[in-house]
């Protein structure tokens, strides 16, 4: 654990430094408050600090206040070193945001024990952040495939459509559905079906750029949002994705399975600014057309076609036919 010592007296500084190095700390030393603040406010700065109360440029309590104002960084556990013993001084120190204080001349064992209490607080904070991040991930991702879940991929689609319209760019929307997936579940079991879904997710992610979005839209349906995708290249990109699924069998516990995917493709620039729900209905119709055309192919939603042809009602993702 890295620890910052801010102390203007070289004797005390050396004494604290050696004491803490012996205890296994990686010690960073500075001799004034301004430098202490600089070190503590860097993104990977020390998370535990021993600050002398009286220092040139900025005193310990002032450093505390400024560190606490910076809400972006991880919590810094701060202990003030002081030879001030009056109650009002101690109160002022703690009110400035310090977690603890130590009176000079200090006992090395007491200092180390108090710092261990600080480490426990930081450990607790780390675990809380980890739990929060885990909950955030669970709230936004599909638990089986770890792709964006339905709610998030729809939000991302809406955002991308607005952005691409504003920037006069085009977003490609791909709705893919695994062919005959019900048969996989029925004949090979749901565990094999889960393996197929996970492998599909891996292959889809491997086929798109880092700034594209892939989400699990429903049971075996996947929504892919390709940002800034030139309409000239949309069909080719969709073909690459289709082939990524079908080009080689998926290895499962029950053996290799040949899996294919049908896809509907829609390119936003050809449709103007329309609500995501409307475009989803169109791309769903294109997917339906791909199924009708024999599966394992891509069908493109065209505005003229959409107007001329009967548009089937928007289907829920848990489709019966696959």
């Amino acid at each position: 654990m890295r620890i910052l010592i801010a102390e203007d007296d070289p004797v005390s500084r050396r004494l604290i430094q050696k004491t803490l190095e012996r205890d296994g700390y990686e010690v960073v030393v500075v001799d004034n408050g301004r430098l202490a603040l600089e070190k503590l406010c860097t993104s990977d700065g020390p998370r535990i600090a021993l600050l002398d109360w009286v220092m040139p440029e900025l005193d310990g309590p002032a450093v505390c206040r400024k560190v606490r104002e910076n809400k972006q960084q991880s919590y810094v556990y701060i202990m003030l070193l002081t030879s001030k013993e009056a109650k009002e001084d101690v109160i002022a120190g703690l009110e400035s945001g310090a977690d603890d204080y130590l009176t000079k001349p200090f006992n090395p064992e007491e200092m180390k024990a108090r710092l261990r209490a600080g480490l426990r607080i930081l450990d607790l904070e780390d675990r809380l952040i980890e739990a929060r991040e885990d909950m955030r991930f669970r709230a936004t991702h599909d638990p089986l495939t770890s792709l964006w879940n339905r709610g998030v991929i729809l939000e991302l689609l809406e955002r991308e459509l607005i952005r691409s319209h504003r920037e006069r760019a085009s977003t490609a929307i791909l709705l893919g559905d695994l062919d005959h997936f019900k048969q996989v579940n029925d004949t090979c079991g749901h565990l094999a079906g889960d393996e197929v879904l996970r492998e599909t997710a891996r292959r889809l992610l491997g086929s798109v750029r880092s700034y594209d979005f892939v989400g699990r839209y429903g049971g075996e349906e996947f929504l892919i949002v390709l940002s800034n995708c030139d309409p000239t290249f949309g069909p080719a990109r969709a073909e690459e994705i289709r082939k990524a699924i079908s080009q080689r069998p998926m290895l499962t516990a029950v053996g290799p399975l040949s899996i294919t995917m049908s896809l509907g493709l829609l390119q936003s620039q050809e449709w103007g600014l329309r609500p995501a729900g409307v475009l989803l209905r169109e791309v769903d119709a294109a997917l339906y057309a791909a199924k009708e055309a024999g599966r394992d192919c891509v069908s493109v939603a065209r505005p003229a076609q959409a107007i001329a042809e009967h548009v089937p009602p928007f289907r829920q993702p848990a489709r019966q036919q696959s």
Partner: protein
Amino acid sequence: MPPHTKDGSNFIDFGELLTRVENDRELLVDLISVFKVELPKQLAALRQAVESADAQRVAVLAHTLKGMLSNLAAHQAAAEASRLEQLARAGEVSALPGVFSSFSTDATALLREVDSSLAEVRG
């Protein structure tokens, strides 16, 4: 024989200092070396602040010296530095030269004698 203050107590309580450095004699020698370089600089700055009746500066310098001396278990000198700090904070500028003079004498004697005491510690 280790140097003594007017009341007979050791300038530096080496027993206490050894506890503070967790019996690391190398560190103790290191601290004394830093102290020998640092004290004259601090004393000179303090003298200048006292002579120019800069109470605020005297308070800051005396505070730093107090911390340094107390961490070295030089209690008598630390108490004198503390007295100087308190007077400066109270704005009693006229009292500063007298207290500084006494502190400076003891601190200089401490500096002069610290080597012989160190020899005893080294054994």
